[in-house]
């Protein structure tokens, strides 16, 4: 009976593609029904599977075949438990993928079979980032720092991002969609994490802070993303010019690395929050890693909004 339990869903799925397996599915059902009603399983499907496996094992190891033949009920019970567990895990994985864009949930950037290219979860990894940090200090929005979107929104999403990171760039479109969709309810605080080794990463983090000094944070932020990752030595000065910033003051700010300490503080905050790469989003204590689809943000944000209500 145990083998029929295992066989039933497998053959049922294969039966979609082949008539041969449809017949086996019916046999599995018959076997289950008969056994459940204390009758003899007429199809003998369980015996056939048992004999087939024993025969295959005989070819390689008669001793193993003997163990299997003698203890097949226990072995098949173990298999059933494993099967049930893997079915549950698969179902959770599929649910996570549908809801969060990754089989392992919103906060994971691990490999997901349903997203084989990893586009939903890829990040620009932070070298030396500590994994499995149990003492995570979740970041809190700093109302003294710039907020993107409706300032009066009740929920602030924090994004650790890097302007030269392709995945942060990819996520930007979704972030815009989220802010539009939740206009008045959700806003964003963008925290720079310049990825070491990425050209113009540090410079862009410094530039946005120098622009903020002159009251043009959001405009400069938007211009940086509008570069579509095409940065040169002139980019930052050119944007400052386009936005009518005091270019001289901007240049001195950049040259003196005026906000180096602030950048370092942001980095420490990211590390304390367990950020492994950019982009990483925090909605209160819920984490979204990588450029996940809009649905993922929606699921997480709705959950947090419900808590507030």
């Amino acid at each position, binding site marked *: 009976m145990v083998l029929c339990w295992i066989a039933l869903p497998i053959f049922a799925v294969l039966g979609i593609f082949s008539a041969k397996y449809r017949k086996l599915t019916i046999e599995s059902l018959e076997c289950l029904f008969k056994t459940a009603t204390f009758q003899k399983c007429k199809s*003998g499907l369980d*015996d*056939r599977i*048992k*004999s*087939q*496996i*024993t*025969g*295959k094992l*005989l*070819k390689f190891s*008669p001793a193993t*075949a*003997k163990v299997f*033949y*003698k203890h097949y009920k226990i072995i098949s019970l173990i298999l059933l438990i494993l099967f049930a567990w893997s079915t549950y895990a698969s179902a959770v994985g599929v649910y996570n993928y549908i809801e969060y864009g990754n089989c392992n949930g919103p906060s994971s950037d691990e490999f997901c079979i349903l997203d084989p290219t990893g586009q939903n979860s890829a990040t620009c990894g932070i070298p030396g980032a500590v994994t499995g940090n149990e003492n995570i200090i979740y970041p809190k929005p700093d109302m003294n720092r710039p907020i993107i979107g409706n300032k009066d929104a009740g929920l602030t999403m924090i994004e650790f991002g890097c302007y030269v990171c392709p995945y942060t760039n990819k996520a930007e479109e979704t972030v815009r969609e989220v802010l539009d969709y939740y206009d008045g309810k959700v806003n964003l605080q963008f925290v720079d994490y310049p990825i070491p080794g990425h050209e113009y990463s540090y410079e862009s983090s410094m530039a946005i802070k120098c622009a903020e000094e002159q009251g043009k944070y959001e405009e400069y932020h938007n211009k940086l993303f509008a570069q579509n990752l095409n940065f040169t030595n002139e980019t930052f000065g050119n944007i400052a010019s386009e936005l009518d910033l005091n270019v001289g003051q901007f240049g001195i700010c950049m040259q003196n690395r005026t906000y180096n300490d602030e950048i370092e503080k942001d980095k420490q905050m990211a590390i304390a929050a367990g950020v492994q790469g950019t982009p990483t989003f925090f909605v209160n204590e819920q984490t979204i890693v990588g450029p996940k689809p809009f649905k993922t943000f929606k699921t997480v944000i709705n959950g947090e909004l419900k808590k507030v209500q």
Partner: protein
Amino acid sequence: MFGLNVDKIRKDFPVLSSGVIYFDNACMSLKPKQVVEKMNEYYYKYSACAGRSAHKLSKKVDEEVDAARMEVQNLLNAGSAEGIIFTRNATEGINLVANAIEWKAGDEIIVSDKEHNSNLIPWLKLKSQGVVVKICKGNEDGTFNLKNFKECFSKKTRLVAIVHVSNLDGVESPIGEIVKVAHLNGVSVLVDGAQSVPHKEVDVRKLDVDFFVFSGHKALGPTGTGVLYGKKDLLNNMNQFIVGGQTVLDSTYEGYDEELLPKKFEAGLQNYAGIIGLGEACRYLKRIGFREIEKQEEKLNKLATELLSGNEKIEILGPKDWKKRGGIFTFNVKGMKSHDVAKMLDASKGIALRSGTFCVHSWFNAHHLDGAVRASFYFYNTEEEVRVFAKEVEKICELA
């Protein structure tokens, strides 16, 4: 004189090149290339009707079907080709006789206790007409009991329907003796030769049988082919079975004139490719020679018996003496289901054999057995294959 060149013969059977160890010959023999090519010849070169059209292709089919009928006639040493009726299989041949004889209530038919369903059910079906089926019990070891047989006769006995070689255990019935006894009692004899024709020389005239049936598919021939041989006078006096096209000389809205033999019993368009293929199978069997075929099968059965009979977990069905079992080795492994054993042999070494009740349910039910495993050898099997089989069976015995 020099024995069989099995290696050379095996090249005629493409299925064997797959590595399968084919021991299910009592169910279905493999087909040599020559038979398949002969059938293809029909389909490629003259796939027309026989006996109806005037064109050349039709004439060619007529010639080939006639030639096949003569091959069968020669194989059985039948008196004339007219007594050779092509059927779909032995089962249909038996059904033809069962339905074409006019039975009276109280008529008795004698059958053995280990008949294939094909030579039991058609007779049991006649019970509704008041016909009595008497089961003649054999000996404990599966051999025929002539004394019991003689005691089965009465004044009402009309027919003896008996298996020539049992598909259950390979035991041969003493047809010569059976026919003598039956004829002394004025009773006709029908012999089921499904397991004899492929393996041994059969001479229906010498045996003096009245009806003889066999299947083509067990004798290297195509599936869907079979033969009923009958003595002409008996066949002429029998009613038609299936009627329609080909079975009449003429018809009006009021009636029809029966065709002559053999067409009287061959209704509708026939399996020409199959019949022509069966003729080729007969030629092939004659080329190999039944003496050599029997020798090879006996050699293989002797080896299987010697290798496995010493194992106390193995129960051989039928006589212990391999000489009495032809090419059939039927057994059970104590404590294991026959289907399990067969499945394991297939999965481990690709050994194809039969398990279950081999359509002899009645015998298994009477002996309170669920079934058995049957290895049935043919001339293209080798001693090496038997050794592999025996080794695997030994391994399976260790599991029990």
